[in-house]
């Protein structure tokens, strides 16, 4: 029965998402759409880590690796080919391939949780330094210079598949991004509701027990890691389409840490919370940045420390738990007053 309700909720989310995606461009100014598109991109990236860390318990400190590979793959592809269909596919496929190789060593090598975090962090630092140092004009892929620390500006926006003269405007990029975000969200919900998703959560709860029951935890984790990389890569592709630019800062520690903060704010083990966390933190840093009251990085650092110390489960689960507890104590006091009245106590 709750299954039917879940399906109905997802259907509603999908319909509302579609309605907003197509109607909003007619209702608001372009600059609002551009701003919203940025939030959508970050929400997508947050979803990828929400799956990998929140549900599978894989503490990946370098989720931005896949975001960056996706962004660079799209950029170098579209600037070489001039048509965006294959580059978009590359922006998803290359991160998956990289995750498959990296994940194979991490999971089949049975690297422990902490070392997995350290290794993924190091890989993103290596990518950062590598790209940073390739600034000479001799470093090219095809005809396109990699650009080193300057990044690559002026990246063409996606076009209608097969028709490179029909490139997307800001409105269409917004519509596309929102549809993809909703699709990814619904897809993840379905994945997590499936037997596969339930085994993934069981592995997070107790990997040894799952294996002693006959589930190959390594394979499950690898598949989740690769799916997470696909979503992060797609977010990277959309990111380039939003700003027509990619630079090595997508591989920086700061960028990776930000994703972790989004998830911590939204709460581990929730998808909607991850989206909310990303949107809230990005909004906060933009607001602080424009108002110049205090350096946004200091605020983010403080938020991070407060969360780790005080609300380790994240805000959303804490609020839900509060709500449940209040309801429970209400029902309990109800039954108590009932027994009291039965006993003749006022």
């Amino acid at each position, binding site marked *: 029965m709750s299954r039917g309700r879940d399906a109905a909720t997802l259907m509603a989310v999908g319909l509302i998402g579609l309605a907003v995606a197509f109607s909003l461009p007619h209702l608001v100014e372009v600059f609002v759409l551009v701003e919203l598109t940025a939030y959508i991109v970050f929400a997508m990236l947050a979803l990828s880590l929400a799956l990998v860390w929140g549900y599978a318990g894989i503490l990946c400190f370098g989720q931005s690796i896949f975001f960056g590979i996706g962004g660079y793959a799209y950029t170098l592809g579209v600037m070489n080919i001039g048509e965006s269909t294959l580059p978009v596919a590359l922006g998803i496929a290359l991160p998956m391939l990289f995750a498959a190789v990296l994940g194979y060593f991490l999971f089949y090598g049975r690297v422990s949780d902490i070392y997995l975090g350290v290794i993924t962090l190091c890989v993103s630092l290596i990518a950062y330094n590598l790209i940073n140092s390739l600034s000479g004009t001799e470093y090219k892929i095809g005809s396109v210079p990699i650009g080193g620390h300057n990044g690559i500006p002026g990246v063409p926006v996606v076009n209608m598949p097969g028709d490179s003269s029909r490139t997307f405007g800001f409105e269409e990029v917004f519509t596309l991004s929102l549809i993809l975000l909703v699709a990814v969200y619904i897809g993840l919900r379905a994945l997590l509701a499936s*037997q596969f998703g*339930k*085994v993934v*959560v*069981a592995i997070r*709860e*107790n990997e*040894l*027990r*799952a*294996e*002693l*029951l*006959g*589930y*190959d*935890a390594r394979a499950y984790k690898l598949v989740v890691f690769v799916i997470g990389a696909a979503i992060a890569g797609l977010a990277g592709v959309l990111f380039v389409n939003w700003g027509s630019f990619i630079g090595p800062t997508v591989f920086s520690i700061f960028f990776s840490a930000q994703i972790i903060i989004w998830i911590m704010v939204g709460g581990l083990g929730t998808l909607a919370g991850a989206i909310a966390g990303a949107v809230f933190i990005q909004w906060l840093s933009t607001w602080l940045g424009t108002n110049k009251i205090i350096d946004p990085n200091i605020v983010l650092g403080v938020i991070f420390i407060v969360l780790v110390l005080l609300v380790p489960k994240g805000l959303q689960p804490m609020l839900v738990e509060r709500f449940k507890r209040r309801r429970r104590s209400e029902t309990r006091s109800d039954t108590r007053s009932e027994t009291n009245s039965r006993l003749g106590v006022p």
Partner: protein
Amino acid sequence: MSKPPILRTEQVCKRFGGVNAVDGIDFSVAEGELRCIIGPNGAGKSTFFKMLSGQLQPTAGRILFREVDITREERHRIARRGVAIKTQVPNVFDGLSAFENLRIAAARRLDSRGAAELARDILARVEMTAHADRAVGELAHGQRQWIEIGMLLAVDPALVLLDEPTAGMTKEEVARAAAMIRALANQRAVIVVEHDMKFVRMVDANVTVFHQGRILVEGPTDTVLRDTRVRDVYLGKAAH
């Protein structure tokens, strides 16, 4: 005695640094047999079980399941062959409900409807239906033991390894566990590590005594518990 062995070990050893935790065990259990392993703390019983289930690799020796060498096999593969273990420290999915724990176990070999049905069935058999929706992490130690035993039932194994299954159980529960374990045998082989001598008497099966990583004696419960060497090992305390 004519039944073929389901499990056989040849000179299995496990060293931890300088400690010979298991020191050359030749052991054999027949299809459908029920066997108790007893022995003082540190005798190597849990280490032996961990090697049988693929959690640890032996330093030397071989382990054969139905005459297939599984010494270096991955633990999930050994599980799929039909070896299920209840570990000494309960291994359950603490954050999931009692029902979901059993359903996940059953779903390894059944479709979703079959798994849910079997999970409900087993909840009733281990008398945990009232706690179906509670997170296993919130349950008492004895109840968690029952959930773990239930998970073993759900995977329908050919060989069940139980490492001190009655720890944390009440007297009535221990009797119930003994009865259930006796019922389990015949359709499958069961090896139980136990400290509780009352329980060992209730089960009344062949007993293997471990001492300092080796087998001290093997035989029917009565004979073994009367053996003076066994009494010496337990300092005479446990035999009464």
